[in-house]
């Protein structure tokens, strides 16, 4: 009889961060207003519900609105950490949904440009938080500015959120192309939000992949893969949650969109 190993005992406590630190995932979109922050916040809650220690870092330094989505009134933000007015521990706040957030301020013009100072501070903060969490989600700003691309570069994985609208798809494509060509990304995840019908996500992903193959493919020997990570269909509950500034996963856990976000979490956890 083997007394040293109890099969009922947990193999590895889920609260302990993975070796080498947290998995880092940047959530970005190209076009604004496609539900990037909403997806990030609810994904964080879905991962937390699976026993993961999650931190959401609002990397949209100039126009942050994670606090708005989560209905938080933060006294301390990344800005205070950057300016030594608060310690990192003071600025990491609990959020509804069982995860932690590191919020950024809004309207800080000085963060609209990427200075060496900001770069250094962000790299430092990422290095400090990685050993303490299982997941660090970076909610980036829209567009492909230096600040956005740098924020994305801090993460090992990228999730691009797009809606079926032509402008969103074009911007998502441009973002993915920049990531493939300038950041050596070999794989990027796609989440199609506000899908009109089942299967639209797969259709869009196939379409983008086809154009990418044609125009990003010619690098000898390099393959690029756009992976469909999920499809969130347009859902009345999403609208309600957004307007009431509630976490969809807490208030409408049974709705289709919540199921889709949970499925995304499951896929990310492999």
């Amino acid at each position, binding site marked *: 009889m083997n007394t040293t190993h109890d099969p009922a005992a947990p193999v590895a406590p889920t609260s302990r961060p993975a070796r080498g630190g947290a998995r880092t995932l940047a959530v970005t979109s190209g076009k604004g207003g496609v539900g990037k922050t909403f997806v990030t916040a609810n994904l964080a809650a879905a991962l937390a519900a699976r026993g993961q220690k999650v931190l959401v870092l609002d990397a949209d330094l100039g126009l942050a609105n994670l606090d708005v989505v989560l209905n938080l009134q933060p006294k301390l933000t990344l800005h205070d950490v950057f300016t030594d007015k608060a310690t990192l521990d003071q600025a990491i706040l609990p959020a509804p949904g069982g995860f932690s957030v590191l919020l950024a301020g809004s309207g800080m013009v000085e963060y609209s440009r*990427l200075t*060496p100072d900001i*770069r*250094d501070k962000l*790299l430092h903060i990422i290095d400090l938080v990685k050993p303490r969490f299982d997941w660090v989600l970076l909610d980036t700003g829209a567009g492909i500015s*230096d600040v956005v*691309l*740098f924020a994305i*570069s*801090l993460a090992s994985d990228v999730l691009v959120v797009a809606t079926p609208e*032509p402008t969103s*798809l*074009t911007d998502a*494509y*441009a973002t993915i*192309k*920049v990531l493939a*060509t*300038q*950041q*050596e990304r070999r794989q990027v995840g796609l989440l199609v939000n506000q899908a009109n*019908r089942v299967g639209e996500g797969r*259709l*869009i992903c196939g*379409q*983008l992949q*086809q*154009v990418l193959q*044609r*125009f*990003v493919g010619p*690098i*000898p*020997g*390099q393959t690029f893969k756009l992976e469909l990570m999920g499809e969130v269909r347009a859902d009345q509950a999403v609208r309600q949650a957004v307007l009431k500034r509630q976490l969809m996963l807490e208030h409408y856990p049974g709705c289709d969109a919540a199921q889709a976000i949970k499925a995304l979490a499951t896929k990310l956890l492999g």
Partner: protein
Amino acid sequence: MPAKTLIDANALDLDQALQLLQQAGALLPDEPPRSVAWLQAVLNALCDLSSKDALTGLVNRRSFEMSLTREVDRVARSGEAALLLILDIDHFKAVNDTHGHGAGDLVICAVAKAIAQAVRPMDLVARVGGEEFAIILPSCATHVGLIVAERVRQRVAELSVEITPGEMLGVTVSLGGAFAPQWVRSSTLLWMERADRQLYRAKADGRNRTCLEPQIDSLVSAEEKGMLFTPLNLDTQQDLP
């Protein structure tokens, strides 16, 4: 009163370490033997020895990988372009097979010396495998990278290695290179892989040449935009009630 030393320096068996240093031709420290300063100097000499390639005196693979990691982080912070070059001696197996390993070693040493003379003072040259070398070129603009790489290639091609008295052998190298993505904290593995791929290209294109990874345009053309929607539009129309 606090103890001055935690270990008895005279109890240490340093024979092997000193023998190793002597064999490598390292100068033994002048400090009084077994003093703290002397021990420190021995340790420093051992560290130095463990970072170097025994045959060429260049930085070895282990030390190179540490430098590459540092360079990746430096690029992420400074945004300065950096180039990684990987070089391989052309048809080296034939040199070994025809003239013996002694001749092969002479060729490797001659190439190592030529590379070291052709690079810029701040570049790091390493021997990373049998006949494979790597160079890290920090703060290196695109056009400068190609100039240095070509200078290395030409310097090697001008070599005439005396493998036995009176018997001279010509040698060439192929070079592959890739720039680190600016502002991005990439992985050393990916960077090596990209440079390696260019080396294969240089070999396939006929050797004795330099291939740098082409800069790719990330602009989205009208053609791409058009392609993004063509079949999607069709599909939407078909699905309309």
